[in-house]
């Protein structure tokens, strides 16, 4: 199925696969980590999609692949319906401009040697947007938008707190008037009190600017608060996607259910499987056969160890990759 550029989701992946590996050396075979396996997600304009999953499940890699920061091994990424692999250079540039990223670490994502004004203006410089004077004005405007004083432009990152830095990173992402912001655990490095401030700011800006967010998070409470839809990732695969309320009240994948069980405030449902998530995430170098979750899954059958479950809809807008989804039997 080849889509021509046209109306579909704003940002979409089909069977996206990203592999890290070193080539075979003289004395050892090549090793390969499939950090993302055959993942399909779709982000609609103006929507907030959250991706959750344990550490090492491939969330960051998925985000980086969307930004073209890691090469993709198979599958495709479409922006506005256009395949990134066959885009013309102007189309690619327009995409880079419209899809912006906020990183997890507010200490690492700002160049310590540049004043904040230059950091925020960098996307404008790179894309050649506006004159130097208009860029300065834009920087001042953006600083106001994220709630920082205008004189911050002349100061350096190390003079700001973690929360302020994340606001700076946010202002940089907003600078070229993007349509999508991909945020990789934007809150996890911040204090709880600052997290809620940031969440409110993000929600307000979304309403004002009509942004779509792809948010990667460990924090299910925050996800519940801000997301429209949620995708669960396990060992490189997307295993469940549903609207936020549906997913939080009726998770169908045992892994999602186990994740929710770890959050007492929300996961008070009666359907919860008795066993909490035990064991460690298996090595991505040698993932289990069949459903990768089967060694830890309380609902696993003999089928699970041999056949990989495909994504299928169990309800409208609720897809799951599981042989025995919860709440359907």
């Amino acid at each position, binding site marked *: 199925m080849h889509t021509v550029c046209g109306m579909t989701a704003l940002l979409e992946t089909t069977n996206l696969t990203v592999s890290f590996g070193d080539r075979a050396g003289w004395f050892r075979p090549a090793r390969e980590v499939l950090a993302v396996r055959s993942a399909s997600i779709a982000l609609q304009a103006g929507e907030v999609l959250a991706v959750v999953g344990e550490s090492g499940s491939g969330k960051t890699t998925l985000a980086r692949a969307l930004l073209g920061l890691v090469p993709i091994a198979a599958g495709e990424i479409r922006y506005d319906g256009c395949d990134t692999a066959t885009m013309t250079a102007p189309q690619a540039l327009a995409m880079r401009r419209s899809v912006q990223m906020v990183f997890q670490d507010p200490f690492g*994502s700002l*160049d310590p040697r540049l004043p904040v004004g230059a950091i925020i203006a960098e996307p404008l410089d790179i894309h050649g947007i506006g004159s130097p004077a208009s860029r300065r004005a834009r920087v001042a405007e953006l600083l106001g938008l994220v709630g920082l004083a205008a004189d911050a432009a002349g100061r350096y990152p190390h003079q700001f707190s973690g929360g302020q830095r994340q606001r700076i990173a946010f202002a*940089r992402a907003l600078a070229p008037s993007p349509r999508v912001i991909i945020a990789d655990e934007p809150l996890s490095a911040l204090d709880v009190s600052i997290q809620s401030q940031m969440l409110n700011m993000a929600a307000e800006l979304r309403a004002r600017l009509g942004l779509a967010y792809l948010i990667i998070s460990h924090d299910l409470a925050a996800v519940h608060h801000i997301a429209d839809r949620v995708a669960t990732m396990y060992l490189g695969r997307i295993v469940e996607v549903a609207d936020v309320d549906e997913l939080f009240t009726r998770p169908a994948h045992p892994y999602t259910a186990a994740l929710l069980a770890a959050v007492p405030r929300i996961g008070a449902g009666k359907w919860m499987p008795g066993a909490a998530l035990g064991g460690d995430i298996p090595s991505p170098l040698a993932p289990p056969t069949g459903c990768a979750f089967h060694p830890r899954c309380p609902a696993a059958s003999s089928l699970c160890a041999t056949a990989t479950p495909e994504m299928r809809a169990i309800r409208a807008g609720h897809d799951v990759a599981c042989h025995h989804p919860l709440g359907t039997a």
Partner: protein
Amino acid sequence: MTEASVSVWQLRWRRLARDRVALGALSVLVLLYGLCFSAAWIEVWLDVTGVDTDLMSRFDPIDARHWLGSDEAGRDEFTRILRGGQISLSIGLFAAIGSSFVGTVIGATAGYFRGRVDMVLMRFTDFMLAMPALPVLIILAAIDLTKLGFSQDFVRSGAAGYWRIVLIVTLLGWTTVARLVRAATLSLVEREFVLAARAQGASSLRILWVHVLPNAVTPIIVATTLRMGSVILTESALSFLGVGIQPPSTSWGSMLTNAQELMASNPLLAVYPGAAILMAVIAINFVGDGLQSAFDPRADPH
């Protein structure tokens, strides 16, 4: 302004200013450069010459005019040392900056592009590193430039002799900086601020120039400083062996060549130029060491 609004460089300068040894060495160095490059005025002031021979006043003793006496050709030893210093010290500066430049370009390219480029450049660096430096320098210094198509007049000129030394010392001296810059680049390109720029579609050149090099400047500065010292030593050795700075130009090393023959009768003439080299190089090394600890990130608040 509060403590929080102090820039990285101000912090570093404060730490350096507390290091008395480094500060003392820096003063000595500034004084040395200042004196050497005022040689012409000092000659006028003392009414002596470090350039022209005066057979009537050979081996003059130390007095109010000849602060260090005069040499075998009647030239004033003190101002001659200053004139030699102009050459030795400026070669030190230029060749150190040159090596750092070459090393930075090679190291940043290797660290940024990695893979095959990195492998080739680093093997090349190893290759240069295993050269028996002095013999190769001597060969390079002795190369007959006319065989490379330069004109006789150019080859005989003082400027050619000077820049030839700068060039060859640069060519053999960039390896340390290249390794340092490569290591710094390798870790910097993994940092998120570089990813942020790449996600915008920033060019490699922009990333290197705006993000990588400014963040790698610390090891570059320290290495350049330390390199200055070894350049001065190398130049003096080459000139001492007669393949460096050629008469009528003079450097501290070439002054020692003459003084060696007069050792038995006028040992002091051999003491001064060597002491000048020792003073300059030791000051440079102390400054470099001070910079290193002042720039140490472990002392930074973050």
